């Protein structure tokens, strides 16, 4: 349930104001636009990493703005892509001389609006490249990887793109590395309960007791398939089997791991699940590297979780390891 709000039609505006009031040490509001930009100045020659999407996924997207991560985030209404106009304004505020990389989850609304903004920027002579996150193996079969939607894999792609931009790579390189991070990331999730939009009284979907949904979306979309609820260790097996069956070909065994909570799943439950995930990863010959068990891409108060693996080859590893600061993720 969404209970803390004033007028639901002002939800986005108020949450941006609150976010900026709290984290003014890291971000400021882009004047006249639904988005935030890092306060700490970057060298003008650096690539600007602009991320964004609907609201309701905190810390995605505004929580990832800061040194070593994104330059700016465009914030749509709850579960609605930001408009091309807002993306354009935020991009204009964030861009220096190094060009711009757009990075966002592959959803129809985001693609439409970011593409329109990209065309407008290009027409004005601003160089823009786009990398869409497509980590969710449930959303399209092998061979159609680029049709997949983006879920918690955002975390790895943003982290690596942000680190590449921060060390001064050119736009070509930042885009290539972001694309590589995406190509080497796979996610799969399960849901136990739907979320409720601000101002609505019923959740977007209901999971019957004793059931779960396989292949969740992070917008309260139901899963691809219903199934009966199992003990945690069986769910761990299911997540891992699905990911390994969809793994990218022939990569070294080191993987970044994110076990991501969607909102109302308890952290303690995630750790209970992670115990078996870790065991199974190792048994499968993989080497989990600095796992993260946390809420990194949420879906309001949806119950469920997803497992993401990012194959970290020698080119991606130093970028994943690089320091960064943001409201949601700090590393040093």
């Amino acid at each position, binding site marked *: 349930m969404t209970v803390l709000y004033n007028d639901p039609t002002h939800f986005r505006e108020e949450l941006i104001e609150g976010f900026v009031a709290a984290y003014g040490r890291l971000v400021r509001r882009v004047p006249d636009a639904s988005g935030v930009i890092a306060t700490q100045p970057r060298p003008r020659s650096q690539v600007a990493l602009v991320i964004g999407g609907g609201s309701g996924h905190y810390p995605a997207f505004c929580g990832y703005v800061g040194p070593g991560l994104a330059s700016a985030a465009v914030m749509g*209404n709850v579960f*609605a892509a930001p408009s091309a106009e807002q993306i354009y304004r935020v991009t204009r505020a964030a861009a220096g001389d190094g060009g711009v990389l757009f990075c966002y989850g592959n959803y129809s*609304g985001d693609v439409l609006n970011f593409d329109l903004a990209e065309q407008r920027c290009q027409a004005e002579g601003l160089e823009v490249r786009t990398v869409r996150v497509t980590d969710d193996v449930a959303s399209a079969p092998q061979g159609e990887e680029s049709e997949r939607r983006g879920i918690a894999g955002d975390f790895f792609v943003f982290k690596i793109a942000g680190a590449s931009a921060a060390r001064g790579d050119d736009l070509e390189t930042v885009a290539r590395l972001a694309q590589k991070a995406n190509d080497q990331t796979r996610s799969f999730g399960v849901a136990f309960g739907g979320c409720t939009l601000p101002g609505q009284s019923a959740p977007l979907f209901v999971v019957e007791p004793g059931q779960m949904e396989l292949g969740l979306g992070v917008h309260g979309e139901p899963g691809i398939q219903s199934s009966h609820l199992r003990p945690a260790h069986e769910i761990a097996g299911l997540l891992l089997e699905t990911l390994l069956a969809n793994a990218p070909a022939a990569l070294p065994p080191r993987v970044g791991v994110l076990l991501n909570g969607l909102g109302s799943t308890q952290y303690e439950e995630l750790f209970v699940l992670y115990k078996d995930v870790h065991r199974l990863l190792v048994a499968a010959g993989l080497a989990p590297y600095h796992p993260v068990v946390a809420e990194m891409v949420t879906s309001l108060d949806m119950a469920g979780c997803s497992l993401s693996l990012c194959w970290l080859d020698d080119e991606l590893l130093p970028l994943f390891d690089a320091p960064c600061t943001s409201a949601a993720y700090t590393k040093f």
Partner: protein
Amino acid sequence: MDAVAQSVVHRWLAEALALMVEHEAELGRLDAAAGDGDHGATMVRGLRAASAALTGATGSSGQLLQQAGAAFADAGGASGALVGALLATAGQQLGDGPCDLPTVTAALRAGADQVARLGKAQPGDKTLLDALYPFLRALAAPPPTQSLTVAWKAALPAAEQGAAATSSLVARRGRAAKLGARSLGHPDPGAVSITYLLRALLATEL
């Protein structure tokens, strides 16, 4: 400048907004079935923004529609971009032209084609196009001299049947496309909301 036609856009927006508010919850439920439940909210937001943008605005119907489309687009989401483009493109095509059957039909067709282009969608993909194209076909049936109101009224059932028929389609575009067969059994929310936009024009007594 055409004062009568101008007020048509204003009146149409007011009717469309009222109709959309009435159906907001229904559209939300349809979108929740295989999407994210916000389609009603987005359509209402878009129409509110368009109405606000047109407050006190003057110009040809084409110009006003263009302005309305730009404001609508700022509602965000897939439908913000697409319906915004539909209105803006139709308005551009309409320009200073008369609001007669052939001109309006051509304008709406240009808008629909722009939606198909932007969304990389075809008829049968379970989108708003599955209401729009049947409507356009029906509009093209009567002789060009027929009154717009009469033709529009006669074509509306084609849009509504098109929207209803999306129930038995598997989505190939938009959020619902990721869910495969799960999108079966419910009409596409965008197709349904388009029928409300079309129906609203009738109430304005063209």
